[in-house]
């Protein structure tokens, strides 16, 4: 029966080529946009190298201080944490296998043959290389000894190696950034700028920065990373961390101040920032997913309505066939199934085309370098998302016309189709 449905679908689509083209164009355009967006989000939030431990890593991305009063909670400071605060609260946490403190990346200047070159430099500790799993093209990460001794060593990415040394091995060579000389100990593959936590061109030890952790301020420009023994330990880690945060001495700030900082994934952090401006310790990721889903549905509403409309006229055009099938014993549910199959075939074709278009567009974006080092790819997650979206699209745009069709009286259907 399915073969018959597919055969009919093919003939119907080919009979009205322009009609099919319009239909297919709408589907393809919508799905391609959604796939490109999915690929970008996957690129930002997915657990790809070097963040292979992402599933059991919690980060301290934000510290908020707010003033609790009778009128409610007023926003005070929402910033990144200081190294001091992170050290105070992350030390020897139960359920944590490893911790790291990393600085925010910042621009540094170098001169190569009197040419000004800018790079992004990030201060990190030695543990950073254990939590993140970078692909080393040559050399190694800096060691705990080098870190403790404040050695002026650096790990650079492939693009920086090419800028400073050409496409040759460079471990042991030195370069200058902001007037300071660093010896290269390792070269890693480029990490895209959208990977907020590991991204940089140059990674150097905190201990090369004389100002590192020199005061007891609570806010600063640092991110704390905690590699949990397992995800099961997350609640315990969060509870202990929040309790330590609550015990911090904040008397230097306003007496009514309350300090909020939560160990969370990067996605959780974005969700908490959007839905509570960082003022709550709750988890808002579910709300973020719901909002993203609603946005996706809204984006799909117009093309879906368009397709419903086109499908209705397609059905009216085929009322004679529907009448014949009903007369010869097709139950309504079977006809609904047939029409949905046809619609899903069309949307799947649109989905495949969209996948191809998304692949090309992402490759173009990646190659132009608009987003530094971005290498957008379509992986199995994106493919399955695309299949899911195409299926939902096909079903939604087919259900109403199919339902209308199934309610059609066979006599009326035959009359409508009579020449």
């Amino acid at each position: 029966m399915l073969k018959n449905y597919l055969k009919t679908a093919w003939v119907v689509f080919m009979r009205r080529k322009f009609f099919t083209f319009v239909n297919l164009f709408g589907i393809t355009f919508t799905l391609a946009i959604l796939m490109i967006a999915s690929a970008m989000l996957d690129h930002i939030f997915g657990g790809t190298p070097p963040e292979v431990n992402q599933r059991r890593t919690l980060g301290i991305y934000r510290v908020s201080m707010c003033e609790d009063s009778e009128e409610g909670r007023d926003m005070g400071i929402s910033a990144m944490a200081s190294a001091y605060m992170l050290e105070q609260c992350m030390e020897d946490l139960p359920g944590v296998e490893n911790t790291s403190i990393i600085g925010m990346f910042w621009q540094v200047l170098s001169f190569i043959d009197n040419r000004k070159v800018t790079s992004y430099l990030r201060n990190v500790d030695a543990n950073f290389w254990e939590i993140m799993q970078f692909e080393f093209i040559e050399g190694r990460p800096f060691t705990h000894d080098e870190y403790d001794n404040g050695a002026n060593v650096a790990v650079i990415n492939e693009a920086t190696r090419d800028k400073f040394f050409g496409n040759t091995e460079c471990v042991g060579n030195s370069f200058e950034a902001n007037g300071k000389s660093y010896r290269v100990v390792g070269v890693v593959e480029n990490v895209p700028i959208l990977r907020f936590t590991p991204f940089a061109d140059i990674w150097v030890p905190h201990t090369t920065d004389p100002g590192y952790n020199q005061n007891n301020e609570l806010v600063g420009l640092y991110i704390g990373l905690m590699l949990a023994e397992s995800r099961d330990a997350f609640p315990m880690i969060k509870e202990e961390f929040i309790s330590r945060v609550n015990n911090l001495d904040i008397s230097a700030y306003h007496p009514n101040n309350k300090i909020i900082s939560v160990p969370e994934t990067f996605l959780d952090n974005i969700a908490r920032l959007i839905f509570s401006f960082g003022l709550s310790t709750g988890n808002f990721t579910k709300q973020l997913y719901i909002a993203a889903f609603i946005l996706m549905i809204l984006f799909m509403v117009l093309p879906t309505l368009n397709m419903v409309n086109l499908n209705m006229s397609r059905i009216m055009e085929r009322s004679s066939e529907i009448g014949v099938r009903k007369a010869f014993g097709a139950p309504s549910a079977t006809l609904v199934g047939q029409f949905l199959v046809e619609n899903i075939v069309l949307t799947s074709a649109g989905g495949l085309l969209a996948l191809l278009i998304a692949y090309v567009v992402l490759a173009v974006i990646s190659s132009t370098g608009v987003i530094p080092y971005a290498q957008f790819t379509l992986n199995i997650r994106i493919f399955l998302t695309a299949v899911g979206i195409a299926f939902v699209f096909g079903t939604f745009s087919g259900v109403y016309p199919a339902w209308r069709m199934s309610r059609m009286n066979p006599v009326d259907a035959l009359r409508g189709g009579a020449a």
Partner: protein
Amino acid sequence: MNMITLENVDKVYRTDKIETLALSNVNLTVEEGEFVAVMGPSGCGKSTLLNLVGLLDKPSKGAVRMMDRDINGNSDRKMAKLRNENIGFIFQSFHLVNDLSVIDNVEIPLLYRKMSGKERRNRCKEALEKVDLLSRMHHRPSQLSGGQQQRVAIARAIVGEPRLLLADEPTGNLDSQMGFEIMDILNGLNKNANTTIVMVTHDQRLADDTERVIRLFDGRRIN
């Protein structure tokens, strides 16, 4: 056995403003194996009667029985099953699906039965052989003449071996030569396969070829 029985059947079509009485107090019995013609002027309710007999529509009043079983109150799914297993239709304008080949058109009634693809194909070929169109099975309906298209429609109507065949002016769109050919096929089915046939026609010569003529006028049976 009575193949179909109509008892005091009325059929009223209603719109927002008017009510049209298409059939009024019609009683009819067609026995198994009969070949019956239904005649009357245009608009007298012939097609409405055929739709009720074919279980495509429900009466506004009265009862319809098929093989001595009351089918009033049957669900749409049950009615579809009854049609699929017992009734074949031949329409004046053929109602072939132009997007499908001849054999795919003939296959339609079998798609809604539990049957393997191979068996379906064999049954379709047998049906096409009966109407002498096996050689055209991969053609599209639009590539055939009117008479050939009606023979395809007959093959589709008989492929499920129905006990009741309903033909709504099956020769209405054909020239007289083709019309007689179609009648020969219908007579053969009636005599050889004992298929009960109810045929609506305007043509007295074709009606004379059947066993009994039912006449309608203004929605009423007049004989």
